[in-house]
């Protein structure tokens, strides 16, 4: 596992080393400064905070038994918000399962997200999948599934299709350190390398795959160097450094759009919470492992940066929290008063047209003991 010590503040780094943009004092090094306006940084900061607040609230809802499950992004906000931000409107993102913050930034409605968390009749996925397994094509954001890694190979196919059709876009795919062990990583990287697809592989190396630490995942020194096996250039970046993440992702996107092929980005970060609401990390990792990462909290670092510039006040922070809380409460209230999907909806979308056997089965359910009296 990479400790924050290794993930240190050097800003000039030979290839293979870790790219940083922020210094400890919150200032930026010229080399990797993505050149954002202050307003952009404020917006990004707001997205990161919003992500964290929503995460916290969803955990609470789960503890209260109001939703069934949540899988959060605590500590990984810079990696997620920064990389999603680097993607243009025409670009696509194939998510893993921790990146709702990026989706919201790209236009996914909070209400739709919360409807998914409750699996109600307004959920675009029609209550068919677990919480956090939402869908929002509109935001050029893939549909989420649980099997680890499958989105990587699909993202490569998607990028490849764009290339075949001579459309200029980049397609970014999110995955964790554990996911690099899956067959999908191998297939995706290999096809991307051979066919030079406009792909960005964004590995959130957060140190853990549930209870399994990275040294049980691979014997390679870094995840980035796995690119060698596929002829795919790679870069390691401080994943808790919003600016560095944006810089390296932008470079990869540009290369992809320009026909330069895929890039593998390893973002060094840390899963500060449990794997999901079903997990208790104290069973398998020492509490003090967390501490150094708390000091490098990706949100705190941007706040320090903004405050040093005088661009963010405690009042603004307070107002932001109130605003997000209000939006969240409203979305939850709406979601909770929305009914579950209809029984009949269970039999839709299996095929484009419903075949006879599903019509029959639907009829069977609708005439059964638990069907609503009038339907």
């Amino acid at each position, binding site marked *: 596992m990479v400790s924050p010590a290794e993930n240190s503040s050097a800003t000039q780094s030979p290839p293979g080393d870790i790219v940083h943009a922020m210094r400890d004092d919150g200032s930026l090094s010229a080399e990797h400064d993505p050149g954002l306006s202050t307003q952009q940084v404020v917006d990004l900061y707001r997205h990161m905070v919003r992500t964290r607040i929503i995460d916290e609230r969803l955990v609470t809802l789960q503890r209260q038994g109001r939703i069934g499950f949540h899988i959060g992004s605590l500590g990984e906000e810079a990696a997620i918000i920064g990389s999603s931000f680097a993607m243009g409107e025409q670009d696509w993102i194939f998510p893993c399962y921790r990146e709702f913050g990026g989706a919201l930034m790209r236009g996914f409605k909070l209400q739709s997200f919360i409807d998914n968390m409750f699996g109600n009749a307004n959920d675009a996925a029609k209550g068919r999948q677990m919480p956090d397994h939402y869908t929002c094509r509109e935001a050029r954001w893939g549909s989420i599934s649980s099997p680890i890694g499958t989105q990587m190979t*699909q993202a490569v196919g998607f990028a490849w299709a764009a290339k075949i059709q001579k459309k200029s876009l980049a397609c970014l795919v999110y995955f964790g350190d554990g996911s690099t062990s899956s067959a999908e990583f191998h297939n995706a990287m290999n096809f991307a390398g051979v066919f030079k697809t406009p792909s960005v592989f964004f590995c959130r190396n957060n140190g853990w795959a549930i209870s399994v630490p990275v040294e049980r995942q691979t014997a390679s020194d870094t995840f980035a160097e796995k690119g060698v096996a596929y002829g795919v250039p790679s870069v390691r970046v401080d994943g808790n450094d919003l600016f560095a993440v944006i810089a390296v992702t932008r470079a990869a996107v540009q290369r992809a759009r320009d026909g330069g092929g895929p890039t593998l980005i390893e973002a060094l970060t840390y899963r500060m919470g449990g794997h999901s609401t079903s997990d208790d990390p104290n069973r398998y990792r020492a509490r003090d492992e967390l501490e150094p990462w708390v000091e490098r909290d990706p949100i705190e670092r941007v706040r320090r940066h903004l405050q040093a510039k005088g661009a963010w006040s405690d009042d603004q922070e307070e107002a932001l929290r109130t605003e997000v809380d209000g939006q969240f409460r409203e979305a939850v209230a709406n979601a909770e008063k929305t009914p579950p999907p209809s029984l009949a909806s269970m039999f839709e979308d299996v095929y484009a047209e419903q075949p006879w056997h599903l019509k029959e089965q639907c009829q069977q359910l609708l005439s059964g003991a638990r069907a609503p009296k009038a339907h």
Partner: protein
Amino acid sequence: MTQMNMVQAINDALRLEMARDDRVVVLGEDVGKVGGVFRVTAGLHDEFGDDRVIDTPLSEGGIIGTAVGMALYGLVPVPEIQFSDFIWPAYDQIVSELAKYRYRSGGEYPCNMVIRTPVGGGIRGGHYHSQHPEASFIHHAGLKVVCPSNPYDAKGLLLASIRDPDPVLFFEPKRVYRAAKGDVPEGDYTVDLTKATVSREGSDVTVIAFGAMLYEALDAAVKAEEQGVDVEVIDLRTLWPLDIDTVIESVKKTGRLVVVHEAPKSCGFGGEIVSLVCEKAFYHLEAAPIRVTGWDTPFPYTLEMEYLPLSHRILPAVIEAAKA
């Protein structure tokens, strides 16, 4: 009309549809320059180029996974799996992803694609070049499964499959790739994916078959006739969703059912057909339905003709059903 074999008819359908619709791309192992190990994609690489007829690395998971991504984009990929026995490394992408995409995304992400793959025994392929894997796909909701028995249907069903908005597994019975010949219209036509066909009418026993075994069923029917048994043979063409009406109508007429398939018996497609018939026409059945299938062993090499449910095994089943 031209005389074609199955290989030529499938090739013709691919060429036609690729010319008509530039979203259609063919990919797989050896499908490009050499035109496929069975030559089904011969000439397509020359005609449509490297971007649309693609030799891939040796990974079925990669082929299907990227094809799913292409379909999400809006292309219509037609990947080939060299032998259906090698489809399992792609099984997760097929059953967890491809089959469920439309459903899990509430319709936002349909996947229009056709997986072509040769199936079945009788070509001296042993364990790993002979299997007939329909049951493992029918069980997972969201997939359509097609298996033509002749060149006319092969072309028409493939064109219909490519145009169908749902993912289709297109199983090509390789034992009759060249043996099955027939008139095939030039140009465009489709065969309805929801309809089975009655290959031979009869009144005493219904035999359900598909792919290469259709010919064995027809052969058994001829021999049964010599024993005074009048056999109706149904060629399913599309295995799933099943054309239940054609099946039930026939069984209601004959009262007797024999189902034939090459795959092993246990948890095979035959069990599904028998059970559906029991559900819908139990009181019309005058004899116990019989399955004539591959044995519940891996597919053997030397004894493959003893493994397959050939005419000599179908015939006694038909007679037994008729005499019960």
